[in-house]
């Protein structure tokens, strides 16, 4: 406190000495703009070049007391000094350092895992059909690529996953809003929704298969049952964490009812909602893979889960490992490409992440 004031006073002295010194980003005294002056009330002290404030004869009685032009310029300068001293400079990390700190460690870790794998194979700790050489997995991948089926397999699963996720979004969002805002619905559904979150969605696969057969609909049903509770719960906790001050402020600005929901409540709840979406995607992907593995049938398009199941029945260990790796990589890629940037952007604009 004491040091802030001392620094402020220094700035005040500097500004008093050079009242026209422009501070970056802050208009210099005397440039307050034409609309700062009341058009019908000419300033009585037009001789003072530094006066930002024309001394208008306002409707308030005390307003007619002219402010000394010197003191007005002084205040503007003081204010500019305070603003400059007290604002945080925008933090910037150079791209190279970012790559070095963010990308290098995981790449090193993956390289190490591959090295250990290779060493274990070379040490012949187990049979070849249980632990194939990393190059065998690479060959399986090349095979799929050369067949032209690699992207078909990936796309079948990813399109199912994303479509299911979008449906979960469309259901989970209004559901979350209702649970958060309507006490009766909250009392009725709140505990069920949180309970469902801890139920592994694989458990739904047998039921879905009996109800819907081995069909795409069964897959989507399992995705929905896995993702909707996460998305709804994310929105509920996002709304619960909205500071009441924002709602009061919105209320005084006239944002009540639906306008309040749209302009205040939902934007304020966005960080929690995004966390829910991220988790919802992870659940969608997991449930889908479980469904594809268990309810695999030649009638359905070949997805990653079926590919994995087929490799198992063929005792094709490189194929099994390849399936696992692909499922992992796609899950991570979608998260990194869609959800992480979204979340970072939202948090950064609010000053919640560096």
């Amino acid at each position, binding site marked *: 406190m004491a040091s802030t004031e001392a620094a402020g006073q220094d700035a005040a002295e500097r500004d008093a000495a050079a009242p026209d010194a422009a501070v970056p980003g802050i208009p210099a005294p005397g440039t307050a703009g034409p609309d700062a002056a009341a058009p019908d009330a000419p300033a009585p002290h037009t001789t003072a070049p530094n006066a930002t404030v024309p001394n208008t004869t306002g409707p308030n009685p005390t307003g007619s007391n002219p402010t000394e032009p010197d003191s007005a310029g002084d205040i503007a300068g003081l*204010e500019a000094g305070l603003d400059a001293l007290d604002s945080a400079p925008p933090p910037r990390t150079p791209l190279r350092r970012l790559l070095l700190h963010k990308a290098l460690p995981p790449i090193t870790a993956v390289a190490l895992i591959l090295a250990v794998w290779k060493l274990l194979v070379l040490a012949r700790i187990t049979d070849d059909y249980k632990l194939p050489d990393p190059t065998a997995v690479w060959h399986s991948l090349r095979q799929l690529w050369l067949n032209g089926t690699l992207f078909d397999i990936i796309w079948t699963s990813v399109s199912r996953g994303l479509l299911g996720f979008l449906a979960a979004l469309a259901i989970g969002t209004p559901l979350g809003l209702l649970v958060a805002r309507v006490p009766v619905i909250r009392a009725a559904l709140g505990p069920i929704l949180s309970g469902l979150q801890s139920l592994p969605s694989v458990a739904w696969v047998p039921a879905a298969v009996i109800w819907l057969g081995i069909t795409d609909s069964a897959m989507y049903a399992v995705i929905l049952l896995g993702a909707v509770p996460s998305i709804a719960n994310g929105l509920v906790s996002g709304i619960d964490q909205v500071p009441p001050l924002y709602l009061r402020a919105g209320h005084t600005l006239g944002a009540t009812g639906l306008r309040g929901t749209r302009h205040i409540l939902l934007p304020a709840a966005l960080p929690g909602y995004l966390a829910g979406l991220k988790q919802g995607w992870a659940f969608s992907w997991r449930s889908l893979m479980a469904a594809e593995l268990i309810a695999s049938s030649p009638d359905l398009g070949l997805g990653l889960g079926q590919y994995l199941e087929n490799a198992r029945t063929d005792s094709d260990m490189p194929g099994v490992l390849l399936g696992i790796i692909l499922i992992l990589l796609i899950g991570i890629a979608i998260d990194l490409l869609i959800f992480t940037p979204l979340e970072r952007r939202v948090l950064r604009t609010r000053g919640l992440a560096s």
Partner: protein
Amino acid sequence: MPPTTTTDRHERTAVASGLPAAVRIEHIHKSFGSAGSGPARPVLEDINLRIRPGEFVCLLGASGCGKSTLLGLVAGLDRPTSGRIELGGTRPALMFQEHALFPWLSAGKNIELALRLRGVPRPDRRPEAERLLELVRLGGAYRKRVHELSGGMRQRVALARALAQDSQLLLMDEPFAALDAITRDVLHEELTRVWSRTSLSVLFVTHNVREAVRLGQRVVLLSSRPGRVAREWTVDIPQPRRIEDPAVADLSVEITEELRREIRRHGKH
């Protein structure tokens, strides 16, 4: 006295009788906690207060005496237990101790949201927001995010957003209490300047006696438990005042004495 019915405070009620007023607070009572959770605790008791159009009134009282509660009632955020509040104009603007700016919007967009909610058509919003930012000397801050602004700048943006409501009455709830002394001084200047240029009426809540005397044309002292209007002073010191002015200091000493007497009363029983 018989409790009068509460009117809808957001209606454009022409001030019924007597002198014109920006707000007329009549026989306001407010209690908390009557619904099941223990006995009703009266917080405000028979508050009567009239603010003339264009007047600057400071409401002074110890912490917890019910100042924020009263402002909340005037702002329509809560309902009084009994009594009536008549507004001379539209919904009042309210400024809080914490800036209450929305962090998902830039400084300029915060103001534009207020304009939008007031019904200002889209093409007029940007120029009006820029004008209001210039008014609080933040011409360059349109694109700034809330977290990039200092405490003083945030409160100036909050003031600009409150002005964007174009209300006749501005309610301020200890808006400068969290700022350091020199920034607060600057904001006092800023507020007096903005007020003197408009026809705004201000009800400014504070627990700081000097601040009340520095700003107000009238200082109203609220007692505690229950909150009642204990005394009132008219401040005849001409603006621009400074917080160090001997006249401000003298009146502050007198009011502080009264405030202390008022607080001491509670230690006796």
